[in-house]
């Protein structure tokens, strides 16, 4: 299926006001694996008839990794630049494909003059299903065993544990929980700017510890909702040479694949 990705600039030129801005994020724009998640989100938005737009080349890093790493200057410079663009387009509502962008836009931009309603893509998908705009049936995931890895910046950081789970449950499968889940979930190891550096010296990688826990459940699928968790969990599964049996998918991909979008 061909995807339609209007940019904010195009919409304004056509005199249209999109109802929601899709904030793609750096991983969603550049990381080969995460780009597939981005496309899955777009397919869902297209399918549900959501009038959305992206910033395209006007989007820039939210500054999240800079802020977590202690570089408040760089964070605020990014934030001010982005807020100028967003306020210029009079953006009211944003959906993000990444919990880190979600957290930063939602919680840290208001102090700098950026006030938007910000939701994560799992929350939007849940809304679309609840509003009857998106029909979901089990499809290829029917009866499969799926476990959900909570992204820290969606879960503990913003108390959203149910949206991704309620979507997975719609797929008519067996959702099995790891012992460390929801508020007690274990990080994948990439947060706090760890994604961009080597781990400090230790006796194990965090993603290996987490993948081990997930694999112990013998799942068919490990689901998550974050491009960084995606990288870490995929690498963790490879570490145990299980990539043939166990797939790592974003919740958006589960929906898009199940509907054969």
């Amino acid at each position: 299926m061909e995807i339609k990705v209007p940019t904010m600039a195009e919409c304004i030129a056509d005199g249209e006001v999109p109802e929601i801005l899709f904030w793609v994020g750096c991983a969603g724009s550049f990381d080969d694996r995460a780009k597939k998640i981005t496309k899955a989100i777009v397919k869902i938005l297209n399918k549900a008839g959501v009038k959305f737009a992206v910033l395209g080349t006007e989007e820039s890093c939210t500054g999240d990794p800079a802020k977590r790493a202690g570089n408040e200057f760089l964070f605020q410079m990014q934030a001010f630049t982005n807020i100028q663009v967003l306020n210029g387009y009079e953006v009211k509502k944003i959906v993000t494909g990444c919990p880190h962008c979600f957290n930063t836009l939602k919680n840290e931009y208001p102090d700098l003059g950026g006030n938007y309603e910000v939701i994560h893509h799992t929350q939007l998908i849940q809304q679309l299903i609840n509003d009857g705009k998106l029909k979901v049936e089990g499809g290829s995931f029917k009866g499969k065993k799926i476990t959900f890895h909570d992204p820290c910046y969606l879960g503990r950081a913003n108390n959203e544990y149910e949206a991704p789970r309620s979507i997975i449950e719609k797929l008519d499968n067996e959702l099995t929980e790891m012992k460390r889940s929801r508020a007690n979930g274990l990080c994948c190891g990439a947060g706090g700017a760890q994604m961009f550096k080597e781990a400090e010296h230790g006796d194990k990688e965090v993603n290996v510890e987490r993948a081990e826990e997930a694999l112990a459940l013998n799942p068919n699928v490990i689901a998550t909702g974050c491009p960084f968790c995606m990288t870490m969990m995929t690498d963790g599964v490879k570490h145990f040479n299980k990539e043939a049996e166990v797939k790592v998918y974003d919740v958006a991909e589960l929906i898009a694949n199940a509907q054969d979008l």
Partner: protein
Amino acid sequence: MGISNIIFLLLFVGAFVLFALRIKTIIRNIRLGRDINLNNNFAQRLKVMSLVAIGQSKMVVRPVAGIMHILIYVGFIIMNIELLEIIIDGITGTHRVFAFLGGFYNFVIASFEFLGLGVLVACIVFLIRRNIIKLKRFWSAEMTSWPRSDANLILTIEIFLMTAFFTMNATDQVLQSRGVEHYIHAGAFPFSQYYSALFTGLSSETLVMIERSVWWFHICGILFFLNYVPYSKHFHILLAFPNVFYSNLNAKGKFNNMESVTNEVKLMFDPSATPPPADAAPVKFGAKDVQDLTWKQLMDAYSCTECGRCTSNCPANITGKKLSPRKIMMDTRYRLEEVGKNIDKNGAEFNDGKSLLHDFISPEELWACTSCNACVEACPVNIDPLSIIVDLRRNLVMEESNAPSALAGMFTNVENNGAPWQFAQADRLNWANEN
């Protein structure tokens, strides 16, 4: 008023004066921190305090420790009502002054015995967990001999106090049954009635001596405990309540905005903005020492009871990295105590050339953090070790330019091409046209 009543009064007043002086020092130390206004959302704060501190909601996440802890907590709070009677008896020379309450008094004394037994059992279980089962979180690197002894000492004192309480009741009963003068018939003793069988063979004189000794031991023990607590990790029994009251009510993912940086960045974006006056004090970015932290972060340090739930949930610590959120809190407290002592000795301006960053907490620990908030979530008294880690990182990066080289590279990428990786911003929408 006899000589013993005067001794009691002196001991009692002395203990409270010492306690008050120590509290004054702790308040002074906490106030060394930066100001932060948390006098808002009173109703919500009260709710969180009722749930988390009074209601112990986060303790029971781990059921065994949680339930045992509630036994001690409830026992401690309720049994302190008896302290009132002990104080009046001690000062006026009466015996069981509230006995006139009759049936109600018997009920209260009986329930104290239930609570006392609960405390005794819980303390023994806790000692076993720490010293025989040797749970990992009580034996990790920062649990050196002092923190371990501190915990054991507290539990041992509590066991002694409870033993004294039961011995007091047991001997009292025998004396009551013999109709010995002064020992009026009062109280109900569901457990110590069995224990009192041990004492029935002794003469009344010996029993009076034992009863008086344990009475004095009990009250002296309590007064000692009162003055030990504020030097110990056990201070959480007082600070837990205000500390939870003032806990962070924002989403855990929100890191605070640095106003000082906002001012500078605004100047960069808008050259016509008003610069700060030339004589304004230079701003320090992030925290290098305890005075750069907020009073709430310092109160966090004094509230920590070193249970280690934060550390046992920390992904970095679980995988063998040097970071331990509990150590961050312990180091903050050790350093704050050191700074406080320096001020007492050498005046407020004294600089010992040391700092929390580097001398206590190393960059390696700070850079192991994934900012996942597991430590914050786990803490039963809503301590926020992550906020201290971030403030120290801010100092490393913005004052010392001391970030790991990979992160410095990430900064350059974000600055130059608006992404943490080396991709051009112009290519940001290429994904839409790729297959």
